[in-house]
Protein backbone atom coordinates (compact mmCIF):
# COMPACT_ATOMS: atom_id res chain seq x y z
CA UNK A 1 0.00 0.00 0.00
CA UNK A 2 2.84 2.34 0.86
CA UNK A 3 4.44 1.85 -2.54
CA UNK A 4 1.26 2.58 -4.45
CA UNK A 5 0.47 5.64 -2.43
CA UNK A 6 3.95 7.00 -2.82
CA UNK A 7 3.04 7.57 -6.46
CA UNK A 8 0.34 10.09 -5.50
CA UNK A 9 2.92 12.24 -3.82
CA UNK A 10 1.73 12.13 -0.22
CA UNK A 11 2.66 9.60 2.40
CA UNK A 12 0.22 7.67 4.50
CA UNK A 13 0.98 7.64 8.19
CA UNK A 14 -0.29 4.32 9.49
CA UNK A 15 -1.95 4.60 12.90
CA UNK A 16 0.46 3.80 15.70
CA UNK A 17 0.67 3.71 19.46
CA UNK A 18 1.02 7.52 19.53
CA UNK A 19 -2.57 7.87 18.34
CA UNK A 20 -3.71 6.68 21.74
CA UNK A 21 -1.87 9.48 23.49
CA UNK A 22 -4.63 12.05 23.46
CA UNK A 23 -3.76 15.55 24.64
CA UNK A 24 -5.68 17.06 27.56
CA UNK A 25 -8.68 19.05 26.37
CA UNK A 26 -8.08 21.77 28.95
CA UNK A 27 -4.64 23.28 28.55
CA UNK A 28 -2.38 22.69 31.50
CA UNK A 29 -4.70 20.24 33.26
CA UNK A 30 -2.86 16.96 32.85
CA UNK A 31 -5.60 14.60 33.94
CA UNK A 32 -8.41 16.12 31.88
CA UNK A 33 -8.15 13.70 28.96
CA UNK A 34 -10.70 11.82 26.96
CA UNK A 35 -10.22 8.42 28.67
CA UNK A 36 -10.80 9.99 32.10
CA UNK A 37 -13.90 11.74 30.83
CA UNK A 38 -15.17 8.47 29.33
CA UNK A 39 -14.57 6.62 32.58
CA UNK A 40 -16.66 9.18 34.46
CA UNK A 41 -19.29 9.11 31.74
CA UNK A 42 -19.51 5.33 32.02
CA UNK A 43 -20.04 5.56 35.77
CA UNK A 44 -22.87 8.05 35.25
CA UNK A 45 -24.45 5.95 32.50
CA UNK A 46 -24.30 2.74 34.49
CA UNK A 47 -25.67 4.40 37.64
CA UNK A 48 -28.55 6.08 35.82
CA UNK A 49 -29.44 2.91 33.94
CA UNK A 50 -29.50 0.59 36.92
CA UNK A 51 -31.15 3.06 39.27
CA UNK A 52 -33.87 3.62 36.67
CA UNK A 53 -34.15 -0.11 36.07
CA UNK A 54 -34.51 -0.98 39.75
CA UNK A 55 -36.54 1.96 40.98
CA UNK A 56 -39.99 0.70 40.15
CA UNK A 57 -39.35 -2.94 40.75
CA UNK A 58 -42.48 -4.95 40.11
CA UNK A 59 -43.40 -8.61 39.96
CA UNK A 60 -44.32 -8.14 36.33
CA UNK A 61 -41.16 -6.34 35.18
CA UNK A 62 -41.13 -3.42 32.79
CA UNK A 63 -38.84 -3.61 29.76
CA UNK A 64 -36.18 -1.56 31.53
CA UNK A 65 -36.33 -3.66 34.67
CA UNK A 66 -36.12 -6.80 32.56
CA UNK A 67 -32.98 -5.52 30.83
CA UNK A 68 -31.34 -4.52 34.11
CA UNK A 69 -32.20 -7.81 35.76
CA UNK A 70 -30.96 -9.69 32.73
CA UNK A 71 -27.48 -8.25 33.11
CA UNK A 72 -27.53 -8.73 36.86
CA UNK A 73 -28.69 -12.32 36.57
CA UNK A 74 -26.05 -13.08 33.99
CA UNK A 75 -23.30 -12.04 36.39
CA UNK A 76 -24.93 -13.47 39.49
CA UNK A 77 -26.03 -16.86 38.16
CA UNK A 78 -23.69 -17.39 35.25
CA UNK A 79 -20.47 -16.15 36.78
CA UNK A 80 -20.65 -15.80 40.54
CA UNK A 81 -22.81 -18.75 41.59
CA UNK A 82 -21.54 -21.30 39.09
CA UNK A 83 -17.88 -20.61 39.79
CA UNK A 84 -17.52 -19.40 43.39
CA UNK A 85 -20.10 -21.73 44.92
CA UNK A 86 -22.16 -21.29 48.05
CA UNK A 87 -20.36 -18.16 49.34
CA UNK A 88 -20.92 -16.30 46.10
CA UNK A 89 -23.34 -13.64 47.35
CA UNK A 90 -20.61 -11.53 48.99
CA UNK A 91 -18.77 -11.12 45.72
CA UNK A 92 -21.67 -10.37 43.41
CA UNK A 93 -21.46 -6.56 43.92
CA UNK A 94 -17.80 -6.47 43.00
CA UNK A 95 -18.15 -8.79 40.01
CA UNK A 96 -21.21 -6.93 38.80
CA UNK A 97 -19.50 -3.54 39.07
CA UNK A 98 -16.45 -4.90 37.32
CA UNK A 99 -18.45 -6.43 34.49
CA UNK A 100 -20.62 -3.41 33.76
CA UNK A 101 -17.74 -0.93 34.11
CA UNK A 102 -15.50 -2.83 31.71
CA UNK A 103 -18.34 -3.58 29.33
CA UNK A 104 -19.48 0.03 29.00
CA UNK A 105 -15.95 1.37 28.74
CA UNK A 106 -15.09 -1.19 26.07
CA UNK A 107 -18.19 -0.53 24.04
CA UNK A 108 -17.28 3.17 23.99
CA UNK A 109 -14.74 2.04 21.41
CA UNK A 110 -17.43 1.66 18.75
CA UNK A 111 -20.02 4.20 19.93
CA UNK A 112 -20.15 6.99 17.34
CA UNK A 113 -18.73 10.34 18.54
CA UNK A 114 -16.96 8.73 21.51
CA UNK A 115 -15.05 6.01 19.67
CA UNK A 116 -12.29 5.42 22.11
CA UNK A 117 -12.09 2.35 24.31
CA UNK A 118 -11.08 3.61 27.74
CA UNK A 119 -9.30 0.36 28.45
CA UNK A 120 -6.84 0.94 25.63
CA UNK A 121 -5.01 3.20 28.07
CA UNK A 122 -3.09 0.69 30.09
CA UNK A 123 -3.49 2.38 33.48
CA UNK A 124 -7.20 1.55 33.68
CA UNK A 125 -6.75 -2.23 33.36
CA UNK A 126 -3.77 -2.02 35.74
CA UNK A 127 -5.91 -0.52 38.47
CA UNK A 128 -8.74 -2.99 37.92
CA UNK A 129 -6.33 -5.93 37.97
CA UNK A 130 -4.66 -4.54 41.11
CA UNK A 131 -8.02 -4.41 42.88
CA UNK A 132 -8.75 -8.00 41.88
CA UNK A 133 -5.24 -9.03 42.94
CA UNK A 134 -5.61 -7.54 46.43
CA UNK A 135 -9.13 -8.88 46.84
CA UNK A 136 -8.36 -12.49 46.07
CA UNK A 137 -5.20 -12.53 48.18
CA UNK A 138 -7.00 -10.82 51.05
CA UNK A 139 -9.83 -13.35 50.88
CA UNK A 140 -7.40 -16.24 50.78
CA UNK A 141 -5.38 -14.94 53.72
CA UNK A 142 -8.45 -14.15 55.81
CA UNK A 143 -10.06 -17.48 55.09
CA UNK A 144 -7.05 -19.76 55.60
CA UNK A 145 -4.56 -17.68 57.55
CA UNK A 146 -1.42 -16.28 56.00
CA UNK A 147 0.79 -19.28 56.84
CA UNK A 148 -1.49 -21.92 55.38
CA UNK A 149 -2.36 -19.77 52.38
CA UNK A 150 1.27 -19.15 51.49
CA UNK A 151 2.18 -22.76 52.16
CA UNK A 152 -0.55 -23.97 49.84
CA UNK A 153 0.68 -21.63 47.13
CA UNK A 154 4.36 -22.43 47.53
CA UNK A 155 4.16 -26.12 48.39
CA UNK A 156 1.21 -27.60 46.62
CA UNK A 157 0.19 -30.70 48.58
CA UNK A 158 0.47 -34.13 47.04
CA UNK A 159 3.56 -33.51 44.94
CA UNK A 160 6.85 -35.43 45.23
CA UNK A 161 9.47 -33.40 47.12
CA UNK A 162 12.09 -32.87 44.35
CA UNK A 163 9.44 -31.37 42.07
CA UNK A 164 9.16 -28.39 44.45
CA UNK A 165 12.46 -27.04 43.11
CA UNK A 166 10.68 -26.45 39.84
CA UNK A 167 7.14 -25.95 41.04
CA UNK A 168 7.62 -23.42 43.84
CA UNK A 169 9.08 -20.60 41.70
CA UNK A 170 6.45 -21.22 39.03
CA UNK A 171 3.62 -21.11 41.55
CA UNK A 172 4.92 -17.94 43.20
CA UNK A 173 5.34 -16.27 39.83
CA UNK A 174 1.86 -17.40 38.78
CA UNK A 175 0.13 -16.03 41.83
CA UNK A 176 2.00 -12.77 42.28
CA UNK A 177 3.23 -11.71 38.86
CA UNK A 178 1.58 -13.57 36.00
CA UNK A 179 -2.01 -13.39 37.21
CA UNK A 180 -2.33 -9.61 37.66
CA UNK A 181 -0.16 -8.96 34.63
CA UNK A 182 -2.08 -11.22 32.25
CA UNK A 183 -5.39 -10.00 33.59
CA UNK A 184 -4.60 -6.36 32.87
CA UNK A 185 -2.58 -6.84 29.68
CA UNK A 186 -5.21 -9.09 28.12
CA UNK A 187 -7.86 -6.43 28.44
CA UNK A 188 -5.52 -3.64 27.44
CA UNK A 189 -4.03 -5.40 24.44
CA UNK A 190 -7.41 -6.52 23.11
CA UNK A 191 -8.81 -3.02 23.22
CA UNK A 192 -5.60 -1.50 21.91
CA UNK A 193 -5.27 -3.95 19.02
CA UNK A 194 -8.96 -3.73 18.15
CA UNK A 195 -8.95 0.05 18.04
CA UNK A 196 -5.74 0.04 16.01
CA UNK A 197 -7.29 -2.38 13.53
CA UNK A 198 -10.35 -0.20 13.06
CA UNK A 199 -8.15 2.86 12.62
CA UNK A 200 -6.06 1.11 9.98
CA UNK A 201 -9.12 0.27 7.90
CA UNK A 202 -10.97 3.56 8.26
CA UNK A 203 -8.01 5.91 8.00
CA UNK A 204 -6.55 3.77 5.24
CA UNK A 205 -9.87 3.78 3.38
CA UNK A 206 -10.08 7.53 3.74
CA UNK A 207 -6.58 7.92 2.43
CA UNK A 208 -7.30 5.65 -0.54
CA UNK A 209 -10.23 7.90 -1.37
CA UNK A 210 -7.78 10.76 -1.87
CA UNK A 211 -5.69 8.75 -4.34
CA UNK A 212 -6.00 8.19 -8.06
CA UNK A 213 -9.20 6.72 -9.53
CA UNK A 214 -8.03 3.12 -9.22
CA UNK A 215 -7.43 3.57 -5.52
CA UNK A 216 -10.78 5.31 -5.08
CA UNK A 217 -12.46 2.14 -6.34
CA UNK A 218 -10.66 0.06 -3.75
CA UNK A 219 -11.51 2.23 -0.78
CA UNK A 220 -15.17 1.05 -0.37
CA UNK A 221 -13.81 -2.42 0.33
CA UNK A 222 -11.62 -1.02 3.07
CA UNK A 223 -14.70 0.66 4.59
CA UNK A 224 -16.76 -2.52 4.23
CA UNK A 225 -14.14 -4.59 6.01
CA UNK A 226 -13.93 -1.83 8.61
CA UNK A 227 -17.68 -2.06 9.23
CA UNK A 228 -17.50 -5.85 9.49
CA UNK A 229 -14.63 -5.50 11.92
CA UNK A 230 -16.67 -3.06 13.99
CA UNK A 231 -19.18 -5.84 14.65
CA UNK A 232 -16.33 -8.22 15.37
CA UNK A 233 -14.92 -5.64 17.78
CA UNK A 234 -18.25 -5.47 19.58
CA UNK A 235 -18.07 -9.22 20.13
CA UNK A 236 -14.50 -8.96 21.40
CA UNK A 237 -15.42 -6.11 23.74
CA UNK A 238 -18.26 -8.05 25.34
CA UNK A 239 -16.09 -11.17 25.49
CA UNK A 240 -13.25 -9.34 27.22
CA UNK A 241 -15.56 -7.90 29.86
CA UNK A 242 -16.87 -11.44 30.41
CA UNK A 243 -13.39 -12.97 30.58
CA UNK A 244 -12.07 -10.37 33.02
CA UNK A 245 -15.00 -11.03 35.35
CA UNK A 246 -14.75 -14.79 34.82
CA UNK A 247 -11.07 -14.85 35.74
CA UNK A 248 -11.68 -12.65 38.77
CA UNK A 249 -14.36 -15.09 39.91
CA UNK A 250 -12.03 -18.03 39.29
CA UNK A 251 -9.23 -16.44 41.31
CA UNK A 252 -11.62 -15.70 44.16
CA UNK A 253 -12.91 -19.27 44.00
CA UNK A 254 -9.33 -20.54 44.08
CA UNK A 255 -8.54 -18.45 47.15
CA UNK A 256 -11.68 -19.67 48.90
CA UNK A 257 -11.03 -23.34 48.18
CA UNK A 258 -9.13 -25.18 50.85
CA UNK A 259 -7.01 -27.14 48.42
CA UNK A 260 -5.54 -25.40 45.44
Amino acid at each position, binding site marked *: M*LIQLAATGEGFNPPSAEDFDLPPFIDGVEFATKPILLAFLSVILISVFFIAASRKAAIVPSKLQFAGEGVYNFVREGLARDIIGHEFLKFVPYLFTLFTFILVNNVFGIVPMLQFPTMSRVSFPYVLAAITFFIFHYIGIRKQGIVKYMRDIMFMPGVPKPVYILLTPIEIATYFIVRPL*TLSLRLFANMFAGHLLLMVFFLGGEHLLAGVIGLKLVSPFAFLIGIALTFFEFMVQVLQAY*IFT*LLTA*LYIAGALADEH
Partner: protein
Amino acid sequence: MEGTLNLVGYGLSAIGPAIATGMIFAAYINGVARQPEARSVLQPIAFLGFALAEALALFGLVLAFVL
Protein backbone atom coordinates in the same frame (compact mmCIF):
# COMPACT_ATOMS: atom_id res chain seq x y z
CA MET B 1 9.27 0.94 2.39
CA GLU B 2 9.88 1.28 6.06
CA GLY B 3 8.59 -0.39 9.14
CA THR B 4 9.77 -2.56 11.94
CA LEU B 5 10.67 -6.23 11.89
CA ASN B 6 9.02 -6.51 15.30
CA LEU B 7 5.67 -6.80 13.60
CA VAL B 8 6.87 -9.63 11.38
CA GLY B 9 8.07 -11.37 14.50
CA TYR B 10 4.73 -10.74 16.11
CA GLY B 11 2.98 -12.27 13.13
CA LEU B 12 5.09 -15.40 13.49
CA SER B 13 4.55 -15.57 17.24
CA ALA B 14 0.79 -15.35 16.76
CA ILE B 15 0.74 -18.71 14.95
CA GLY B 16 1.10 -20.68 18.17
CA PRO B 17 -1.80 -19.05 20.06
CA ALA B 18 -3.90 -19.22 16.89
CA ILE B 19 -3.50 -22.99 16.72
CA ALA B 20 -4.08 -23.27 20.46
CA THR B 21 -7.31 -21.27 20.26
CA GLY B 22 -8.51 -23.43 17.39
CA MET B 23 -7.81 -26.60 19.34
CA ILE B 24 -9.56 -25.31 22.45
CA PHE B 25 -12.74 -24.47 20.61
CA ALA B 26 -12.58 -27.68 18.60
CA ALA B 27 -12.50 -29.60 21.86
CA TYR B 28 -15.31 -27.47 23.27
CA ILE B 29 -17.52 -28.02 20.21
CA ASN B 30 -16.76 -31.73 20.32
CA GLY B 31 -17.69 -31.89 23.95
CA VAL B 32 -20.96 -30.03 23.49
CA ALA B 33 -21.84 -32.06 20.40
CA ARG B 34 -21.40 -35.30 22.29
CA GLN B 35 -23.13 -34.13 25.41
CA PRO B 36 -25.21 -30.97 24.92
CA GLU B 37 -26.18 -30.72 28.60
CA ALA B 38 -22.50 -30.27 29.52
CA ARG B 39 -22.48 -26.91 27.79
CA SER B 40 -22.78 -24.75 30.89
CA VAL B 41 -19.91 -26.65 32.54
CA LEU B 42 -17.66 -26.52 29.51
CA GLN B 43 -18.25 -22.91 28.56
CA PRO B 44 -16.26 -21.20 31.34
CA ILE B 45 -13.47 -23.74 30.92
CA ALA B 46 -13.31 -23.16 27.18
CA PHE B 47 -13.24 -19.40 27.57
CA LEU B 48 -10.64 -19.63 30.31
CA GLY B 49 -8.40 -21.73 28.09
CA PHE B 50 -9.03 -19.38 25.20
CA ALA B 51 -8.14 -16.38 27.36
CA LEU B 52 -4.93 -18.01 28.55
CA ALA B 53 -3.83 -18.97 25.03
CA GLU B 54 -4.77 -15.58 23.71
CA ALA B 55 -2.79 -13.83 26.41
CA LEU B 56 0.40 -15.12 24.80
CA ALA B 57 -0.49 -13.57 21.47
CA LEU B 58 -1.30 -10.30 23.20
CA PHE B 59 2.00 -10.29 25.07
CA GLY B 60 3.60 -10.58 21.67
CA LEU B 61 1.62 -7.61 20.46
CA VAL B 62 2.55 -5.49 23.46
CA LEU B 63 6.20 -6.44 23.13
CA ALA B 64 6.14 -5.69 19.41
CA PHE B 65 5.23 -2.12 20.28
CA VAL B 66 7.37 -1.77 23.38
CA LEU B 67 10.66 -3.17 22.13
